[in-house]
């Protein structure tokens, strides 16, 4: 077998599979966003549909609807806010953990990393469901929390089905995405830099903010992208832990596809989400590259 033939035979099957079951569906979704919804929902049939005056049954109506109503802009803004809050909280929680692992003895590190990854391999729904128990109205946590509020003279609050529950769920599910890239970065730091800083009179606080943290920025950006992008499109967490007013982009996409059955508009929302995700990934990569100079 010539190298060319080998190359063709080995790379074609996965290539064809991913073209058919990933790339083509994605392109069809782009096409769908320019089409009309079918009479019974879904998509209008490709041939002989729509207004005959329209060019091949294509329309900009769905995009006009998206950009014409501030409701959808607000929806994306809200999702953006939830995803950013999640990213910041993940960073605050993940940093000490990553630092602990990176500074612990070499023989413990692999085990400590594995301990971060393990919960994240348990089923996603189970991890969200666990918070339903913890934040539920009768749980010990909620009673203690509301008891504390009562001592402070504040009315008891419902924790479950609230924005707070959604953010806790988002942070919980995405935390390992932040810990791992941070750890990978922190592990490579040269400890003699900290010794040098100490010799030059830097206190612990200064050593952290002027040596460790700036050096760890590529890890921070990588982690931020890994948390922010999936958090932006999530629908199951607001669906399970959120209240009725806690719908995010993912929930509305789900509604458009499964309940309202307006697929063209659902496609528009999905495409805007994709564009944002790719934009943020690109931005994180670009900023991280700049930092490495």
């Amino acid at each position, binding site marked *: 077998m010539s190298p060319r033939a080998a190359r063709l035979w080995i790379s074609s099957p996965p290539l064809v599979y991913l073209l058919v079951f990933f790339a083509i569906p994605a392109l069809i979704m782009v096409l769908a966003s320019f089409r009309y919804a079918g009479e019974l929902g879904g998509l209008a049939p490709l041939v002989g549909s729509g207004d005959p005056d329209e060019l091949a049954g294509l329309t900009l109506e769905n995009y006009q609807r998206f950009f014409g109503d501030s409701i959808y802009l607000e929806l994306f803004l809200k999702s953006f806010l939830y995803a950013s809050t999640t990213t910041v909280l993940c960073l605050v929680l993940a940093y000490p953990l990553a630092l602990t692992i990176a500074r612990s003895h070499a023989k413990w590190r692999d085990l400590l990393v594995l301990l971060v990854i393990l919960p994240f391999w348990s089923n996603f729904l189970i991890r969200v469901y666990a918070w339903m128990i913890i934040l539920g109205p*009768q749980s010990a946590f909620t009673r203690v929390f509301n008891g504390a509020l009562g001592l402070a003279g504040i009315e008891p609050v419902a924790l479950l089905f609230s924005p707070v529950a959604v953010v806790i769920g988002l942070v919980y599910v995405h935390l390992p995405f932040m810990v791992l890239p941070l750890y990978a970065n922190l592990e490579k730091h040269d400890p003699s830099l*900290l010794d040098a800083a100490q010799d030059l009179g830097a206190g612990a606080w200064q050593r952290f903010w002027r040596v460790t943290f700036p050096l760890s920025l590529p890890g921070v950006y990588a982690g931020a992208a890994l948390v922010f992008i999936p958090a932006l499109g999530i629908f199951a967490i607001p669906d399970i832990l959120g209240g009725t007013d806690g719908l995010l982009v993912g929930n509305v996409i789900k509604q458009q596809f499964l309940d309202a059955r307006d697929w063209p508009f659902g496609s528009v929302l999905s495409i805007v989400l994709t564009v944002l995700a790719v934009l943020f990934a690109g931005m994180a990569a670009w900023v991280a590259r700049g930092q490495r100079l």
Partner: protein
Amino acid sequence: MRRRPWLVWTAGVLTYLFLYVPLIIVVVYSFNDSRLNAEWVGFTTHWYGELLRDEQMIEAAWNSLLIGVVASAVSTVLGTMAGYAIYRFRLRLLPILVVMPIAIPEILMGVSLLIFFVMLNLTLGLVSIILSHIAFCVGFVAIVVRSRLSGMDESLIEAARDLGATPVQAFRLVTLPLIMPGIVAGALMAFTLSIDDFVITFFTAGVDSVTLPLQIYSMIKIAVTPEVNAVSTLLMLLTLVLIVIATRLAPGSFRGK
């Protein structure tokens, strides 16, 4: 621990607690003799027995198993080919196609596959779920196999070729045995991902096919019973066993999901 990092250390330990306490609560309550997930009443295995009598749950488990076995088998073959091709040849499109499904929000793949299957007039069910699972598992297998290959000593292949092995023989007798742990780890990973997948399955399952995550979802949404705790505990146990095997075979392969 040269400096006094007790503050950082305490925060680190608290974060581990944050990661594990919720899961421990699920496991503990799966043995709780109470309908409510509120406080500990007494020990029972009643909810596990309840699981075995729940026909829908059994059907969901069989579906998940079937989907997991078929999807992981096919994606292991395709993913190994992809990982090898990316390692060996200079390719433009394949490396991008392999990571894209992993990089974008899952819901996008779910809805685009939904449109695609409906356009093809394919009845949504086990087949569409399996086809979708293969599509997102291939990339993970390819990445594990690719990293295993890059750790391989290239001179072994050259030695085999010098001794008269054909490229196919060199692959079969040298490369394949060397990367086998990576392939098996990739297969286990694909199986775990398939068994656990909720989002993409949710969109491609149609109305008649139920998998374990879909069943758990509808139980959570409609009425929470401790049966959810029991099935969750079993599912966690299964995943744990698979990961331990995979990490033994190919250390580091479960680093990034």
